[in-house]
C-alpha cells in the first residue's frame, strides 16, 4: 500500500549517492507523505506538508546543492556499527509500540481527554484545527513564530559575511 511505497522510496534514498537524485526523491517522499496524511484525515497537515515539505524544503536543498558539490563521496568504512545500532533501536521501539493502543481504537486515551471539548465548536470556527491553532493553543503558534524568526536571523547571520557569494535562496526559510 501507500506506506510500503513510502518505505521503498526511503530505501532507495538511503542507497543513492547522487545528491540531486536524493533531493528529488525527498520531494517525492514528501508528496507521498502528504497523501498518507490525507488518508489519515489530516487535510490541513497534508496541505502544509505538500507546500512546505515538498516545496520550500526542495527549493532550499537545491539552493544548497547549487553552492556545494552534488556528488557524495564513497563511504570509507563499512556501515556495520550504524546499521546494528539503528536495528537495535528499531527492535526496542517496536517492542515499545506493541504496548500502544490499536490503530483507530475509539476508546484510546487520545480521543477521551480534551478533544470532546474542542469538537463542541466553542469559538464558532467550523474548522477545528484552525480553532485549536489560533485560539486554544495560540501560545504554541507564537512560539513557532519565534523559532522561525530566530532561524531566519541565524541564516542571514551565517551567509552574509561574503558579499559575492549568493545565499539569497536560503534567506527565505
Amino acid at each position, binding site marked *: 500500500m501507500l506506506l510500503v511505497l513510502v518505505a521503498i522510496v526511503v530505501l532507495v534514498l538511503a542507497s543513492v549517492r547522487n545528491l540531486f537524485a536524493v533531493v528529488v526523491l525527498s520531494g517525492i517522499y514528501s508528496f507521498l507523505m502528504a497523501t498518507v496524511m490525507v488518508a489519515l484525515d489530516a487535510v490541513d497537515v497534508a496541505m502544509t*506538508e505538500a507546500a512546505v515539505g515538498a516545496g520550500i524544503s526542495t527549493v532550499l536543498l537545491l539552493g544548497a546543492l547549487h553552492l556545494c558539490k552534488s556528488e557524495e563521496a564513497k563511504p570509507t568504512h563499512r556501515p556495520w556499527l550504524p546499521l546494528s545500532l539503528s536495528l537495535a533501536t528499531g527492535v526496542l521501539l517496536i517492542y515499545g509500540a506493541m504496548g500502544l493502543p490499536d490503530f483507530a481504537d475509539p476508546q484510546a486515551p487520545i480521543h477521551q481527554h480534551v478533544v470532546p471539548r474542542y469538537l463542541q465548536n466553542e469559538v464558532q470556527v467550523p474548522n477545528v484545527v484552525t480553532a485549536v491553532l489560533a485560539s486554544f493553543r495560540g501560545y504554541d503558534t507564537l512560539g513557532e513564530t519565534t523559532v522561525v524568526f530566530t532561524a531566519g536571523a541565524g541564516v542571514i547571520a551565517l551567509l552574509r559575511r561574503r558579499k559575492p557569494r549568493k545565499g539569497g535562496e536560503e534567506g527565505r526559510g
Partner: protein
Amino acid sequence: MIEHFSYIVTVFLMIAGLYIVIARGNLIKKLVGLSIFQTSVYLLYLAPGKLLGGTAPILAPAYGVYSNPLPHVLILTAIVVGVATLALGLALAVRIREVYGTIEEDEILALDHRIEEAEEQGEERRA
C-alpha cells in the same frame, strides 16, 4: 500485528533516518536523513488520531465522527519548525563548504587534524 502496522512503518522510517544521519558523511545527506526522521514523528502523532469512519475535523451537520484535531495542530507547528531548522542546517553546510571546500565529514575532520598538527609543529620550532 495488523493493528500496529502504522507503528511498524513509523519505526522503520525512524531507523532509516537515524541510519542515514549516523552512517553518511555528507552533510546534505545527513540533513535529508534528519527530515525523514522528523516525518516519521509526524506519522507517529497522526496515526493514532485517525478514527475509522471519521472525517477531517471540519464541523458539518451531515457528519458526526471526526478524527482527532489535536495532533494535526501539533504537527502543523512541527512542520514549519522543521523547515526552519533545515534552512539553518543548510546555511551551516554552505558556510562549512566556503571555509573547508568540502561538505564530507571525513575530509573536514582530516583537514582539522592536519591544521592542528601544523600548529603543534610551529610551536615546537619556536621553542
